[in-house]
């Protein structure tokens, strides 16, 4: 792991999808075993280039996600390293049994990619807003579930996925440009959380992932200005969760706030709570979508609407400290 934080809270001019598409393009040139299957959404994530460059290994399965997931599993059975993409709603709910049974249960690895994580589905609205995709993949035995924060993190993850040859993996990501948290070239280790701020005076720990990482960093600045020291951890790796890091934070700071672009009923907050209940029972507050369906609107509106803002994290930190 080699991480450099930018700390400017500025939006990346590049779309996150390119971290995936350009990296996969490079990886497919190096490794002939890599295949790519999409469901009529290549244009949305800039992966038409893969079909142009590797027509024998990048496939359109059309608008038929269940079959596409099964085809991906069958390809994996012939020794291929298969990436499978659709919008997060469709690469989870729409093909769950195929991923569960034809791939995971059958001992075949498929790297599932779900674009438009959570409220980033914005103008496609509630029908296209995956707020439970992580939950579905968390509940598949031996799975890996990842929620990267930005371009550099998605790129680093993408490079590691072909090396995972056990269990299915699920990576939920934002298609568009997001606030750039990490400098390009930063590298991350699946299974290891990233400590972004820590001090001996920390009164609580904010454990965030995805687009909530930047909100957590802004919350840290605001709280520091008020004299409240908190630890901030980027836990892009929901599963395997960095349980040692979670436990250490709980023991050293005594209070936890989780922050996720997902339904809190079964997501990052839940896996952290599960870990804490077993290893170090600790007061916890959950920032995220509070068991609601998605809806249409600009992402800024949706982040306000569902309480995914810096201010929501600040309030949660104060609440959790009061409960200690």
């Amino acid at each position, binding site marked *: 792991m080699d991480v450099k934080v930018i700390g400017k809270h500025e939006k990346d001019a590049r779309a996150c999808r390119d971290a995936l598409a350009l990296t996969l393009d490079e990886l497919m040139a190096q490794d002939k075993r890599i*295949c790519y299957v999409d469901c009529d959404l290549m244009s949305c994530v800039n992966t038409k280039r893969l079909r142009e460059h590797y027509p*024998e*290994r990048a*496939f359109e*399965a*059309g608008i*038929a996600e*269940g*079959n*596409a*997931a*099964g*085809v*991906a*599993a*069958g*390809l*994996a*059975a*012939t*020794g*291929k390293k298969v990436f499978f993409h659709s919008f997060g709603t469709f690469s989870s709910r729409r093909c769950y*049994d*195929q991923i569960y*049974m*034809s791939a995971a*249960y*059958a*001992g075949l690895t498929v790297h599932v990619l779900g674009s438009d994580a959570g409220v980033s589905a914005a103008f496609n609205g509630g029908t296209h807003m995956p707020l439970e995709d992580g939950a579905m993949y968390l509940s598949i035995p031996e799975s890996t579930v990842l929620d990267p924060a930005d371009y550099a993190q998605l790129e680093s993850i993408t490079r590691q996925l072909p090396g995972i040859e056990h269990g299915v993996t699920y990576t939920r990501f934002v298609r568009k440009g997001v606030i750039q948290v990490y400098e390009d070239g930063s590298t991350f280790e699946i299974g290891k959380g990233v400590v972004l701020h820590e001090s001996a005076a920390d009164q609580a720990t904010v454990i965030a992932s995805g687009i909530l990482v930047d909100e957590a960093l802004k919350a840290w600045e605001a709280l520091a200005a008020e004299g409240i020291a908190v630890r901030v951890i980027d836990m892009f790796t929901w599963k395997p969760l960095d349980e040692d890091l979670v436990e250490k934070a709980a023991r050293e700071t005594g209070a936890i706030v989780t922050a996720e672009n997902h339904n809190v009923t079964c997501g990052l907050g839940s896996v952290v709570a599960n870990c804490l209940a077993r290893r170090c029972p600790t007061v916890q507050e959950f920032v995220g979508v509070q068991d609601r369906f998605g809806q249409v609107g600009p992402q800024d509106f949706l982040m306000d609407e569902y309480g995914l803002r810096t201010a929501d994290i600040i309030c949660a930190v104060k609440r959790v400290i009061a409960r200690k």
Partner: protein
Amino acid sequence: MDERRIKELAAEIRLETLRVIHSRGFGHVGGSMDLADVMAVLYGAVMEYDPKQPRWEDRDWLVMSKGHAGPVAYATFGLMGYYPKEEAYTLNQPHTKFPSHMDRKLTPGVDLTTGSLGQGASTAVGAALGNKIDGRKSRVYAILGDGELDEGEIWEAFHFAYAHKLDNLLFFVDKNGYQLDGPTDDILAHSDIAAKCAAFGLYTQEIDGHDVTAIYEAIQNAQSKKGVPSCIVLDTIKGKGATFAEPKREHSSQPKEEQWAEALAAAEQALETIRKA
């Protein structure tokens, strides 16, 4: 093809399938027994495989999409030497390698895991695609049930197979006319299955699913077609050769011990008759 030998093999598979299910006392007899003839042709005269190397790269693949027909596959694999056939007499016992629905992680010879109906069609497509990418001559044989055709995924898989010109893929439809709750016409009528498969672009034939020569010739015919996937609709009798299951076209059976004795004796007799012919 040595017709007499394949008929004998089909009778051996029927007897062995009964023995496998009898070891547990109950199971999916109907949809297993009606496949004995196609399994005999595939494993006795058509497919390339090596029982000592079940995952041999250049093998032909079998995908039993109607995964509940596991017992007929376990019987066939045992007879072909993948393992001592008696091993399969642990069907559905704790920690068995022979579960009711087929599992590639457990059983030598099983290429893809099936059980959630419809899914084997898609994984068979993926396997055919993967073999094509690698330039292997391997063919993929997928066996679907007619009740299974209720699943929309089957038709998605046909669509994909046609669009990607998977001529190394052959679907069989075991058209026995029955599914769990009763006759397929009564549950969700299909109209003409072969016409529908053909309309999806598959080179489709319909034959007597218990005529080993017809099955063999249809497979040869299908394999001569370039650029299109194929389909052979097998007209079969559910439970064929199981005295307690065939008259009622049973999906699953739990016969009494005397019924088992009668069925096993009849299957032994059928085998003897072929051997003496």
